[in-house]
């Protein structure tokens, strides 16, 4: 009996201990994050020809590649490295993708598609693969006039960036700026990569400070075109009647600058009465004007927080121009910048994390980034000459600015907050200033 008991106990012990052993997990492997972000490698195939021109097929492929590389998050692989076909298969009814062929050449993304063109309409359909997981990430179709193909290609690139990172790229967005390339300073608009510059105003007066509405359809700007005094005007996409706004806001007062709030329903306007400028808030239709600052000092350069509840602005109330933050509900104001004796032109990032501003260091201005609480403050770009007028891309990954580092002022773009991948966008030999980065463009067809 006792022998049997012993056997039972022994079995019980073995069973229990082996169960405990089975439950013992392998140790966890904690992978340290990459010190550098790294870039995704993309293979962009030539799209399948459904009646497009060879030129169109090439331009779409190049446009997607350029747009991806503009993001600084992707690098395009040379087609010479491909183990599979250079040209895309049909999106439907083709044999399954051989993922190892793309993995082997280091591709993270594979872009394939079809292009058809009939008369006045071109259709592009594309599909993106996550090669590592061998899964389809995105499939979409765009239609437009053939002249729209470059824009569609940039848009596709932005979508691919979004499919991998959650935030689309900005290659298909636009930047407004002021240039005297035709004589007087006029408002121009270009693609975010500097291509396709279009002239917005043609009044041969002085025009400055373009600012976009959040829907991307309107640009408000300051012009001396009437009575040689500064007032606000708007350019609206698709209409031929740019016109003055806020005629009766404060009778006789000059309007130096207008900035749309994030809802697009209101504008902050810098108004000067008897040489003293203050910031006002006004409805888009000119009603409901409210004075936000009422100081004897100069208050200029408003920039809204992305939630529209706060505003960064510049005041010289302390004796030198400095950046302040105002609570639009309660009106409380606090000073944000303390470095050096001259800080101006704040630009609040769309993700709310940073405020870019100009700081005079030595003889010239540098661009700095500070967080809205003032805890972190560091230079973005430094140069013995002037880097000014920061404007954020809608994804908060880039900043465009004007710099005279190579002679006359040109528009440059740089990655934020790292200050890397500096790129010159304009090279006309003119003075190109006051860039304003537009929002994400509306959905294409």
């Amino acid at each position, binding site marked *: 009996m006792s022998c049997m008991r012993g056997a039972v106990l022994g079995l019980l012990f073995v069973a229990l201990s082996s169960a405990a052993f089975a439950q013992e997990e392998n140790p966890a492997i*904690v*992978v*340290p994050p990459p010190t550098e972000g790294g870039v995704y490698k993309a293979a962009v195939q030539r799209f399948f020809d459904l009646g497009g021109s060879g030129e169109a097929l090439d331009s779409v492929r190049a446009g997607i590649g350029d747009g991806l590389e503009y993001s600084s998050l992707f690098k395009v692989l040379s087609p010479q490295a491909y183990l599979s076909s250079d040209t895309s298969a049909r999106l439907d009814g083709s044999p399954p993708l051989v993922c190892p062929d793309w*993995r082997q050449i280091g591709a993270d993304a594979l872009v394939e598609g079809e292009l058809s063109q009939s008369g006045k309409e071109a259709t592009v359909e594309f599909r993106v693969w996550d090669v590592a997981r061998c899964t389809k990430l995105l499939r979409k179709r765009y239609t437009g006039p053939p002249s729209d193909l470059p824009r569609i290609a940039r848009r596709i690139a932005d979508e691919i960036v979004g499919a991998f990172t*959650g935030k689309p790229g900005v290659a298909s967005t636009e930047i407004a700026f002021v240039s005297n390339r035709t004589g007087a300073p006029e408002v121009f608009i270009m693609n975010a990569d500097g291509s396709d510059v279009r002239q917005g105003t043609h009044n041969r007066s002085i025009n400055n400070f373009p600012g976009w509405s959040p829907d991307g359809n309107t640009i408000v700007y300051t012009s001396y075109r009437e009575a040689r005094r500064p007032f606000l005007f708007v350019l609206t996409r698709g209409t031929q009647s740019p016109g003055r706004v806020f005629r009766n806001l404060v009778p006789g007062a000059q309007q130096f600058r207008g900035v749309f709030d994030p809802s697009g329903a209101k504008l902050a306007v810098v108004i000067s009465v008897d040489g003293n400028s203050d910031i006002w808030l006004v409805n888009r239709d000119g009603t409901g004007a409210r004075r936000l600052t009422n100081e004897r000092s100069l208050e200029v350069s408003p920039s809204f927080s992305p939630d529209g509840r706060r505003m960064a602005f510049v005041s010289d109330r302390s004796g030198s121009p400095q950046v302040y933050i105002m609570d639009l509900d309660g009106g409380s104001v606090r000073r944000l910048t303390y470095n050096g004796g001259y800080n101006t032109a704040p630009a609040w990032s769309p993700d709310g994390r940073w405020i870019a501003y100009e700081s005079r260091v030595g003889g010239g201005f540098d661009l700095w980034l500070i967080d809205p609480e003032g805890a972190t403050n*560091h230079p973005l770009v430094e140069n013995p000459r002037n880097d000014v007028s920061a404007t954020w891309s809608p994804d908060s990954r880039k900043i465009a600015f004007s710099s005279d580092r190579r002679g006359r002022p040109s528009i440059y773009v740089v990655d934020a907050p*790292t200050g890397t991948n500096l790129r010159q966008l304009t090279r006309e030999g003119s003075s190109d200033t006051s860039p304003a980065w537009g929002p994400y463009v509306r959905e294409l067809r």
Partner: protein
Amino acid sequence: MLDLAEEFDAERRGAFRRALTLSCVAHAALVALFSFSPSSKSSVPALPGIITVDLVAAAPSLAPAPAPPAPKPEAPAPIEVPKPPPPPPPQKVVLPKEATQLPEKMPPKPKPKPPPQDYDTLMKELRAQAGDARPQAVETVRNPQVAVAAPAGGTVRVSPEVAAWIRDVKIHVHKTWIKESDLADLSTTLIVTLDAAGNVVGEPKVKQRSGNPYYDDSVIRAIEKASPLPKPPTPGDWTFVFPSEEPD
């Protein structure tokens, strides 16, 4: 069955009492021995060949070894790794409400990024960080146990072979991971099934999401791209943790 259990209990109690008595006597003897030992404080031996590798990237690191409170025995006992304290609650950084006066001299511009490193340099650096400059240190280790992260937090002790494999796997996966620099305060835990050759079998399972699906995807991609991993000590399920920041 009840009788059996009771009897077993009784037997166990008896055994326990005997063990307790033995233990007390042994402890008393040890205390007596060390109290009268002439070579006490100055002779704390540097245990030859024992490595204390902190491979625990995310979990709280091993608590610093407490100062020896009493003379230590000379016997080459296994390293007693103190149980780490429970992970402290994540510290919430309270930013000042008011902007503080910044010094006149501004902080220098953040240093430019170091040039990309090759595999060997990175390997060496990570080893150095882990407190082990010897590439084959595990072979000389007399102590068979090294503390590494446990899946449920804290640390577990594993053989040097497993520790070395984990170290190599970390480097392997670290190199394939692409992460946007502005992502912070995220962590994803994956369960990855490995076959004997180190191939990732099937899609890794997300045990704990980060809250950002694109971040979760980025770490799954890293694992898939890293496959095959170095040959594992045992095939089966392995837990991978991907924190967005280098732990302190």
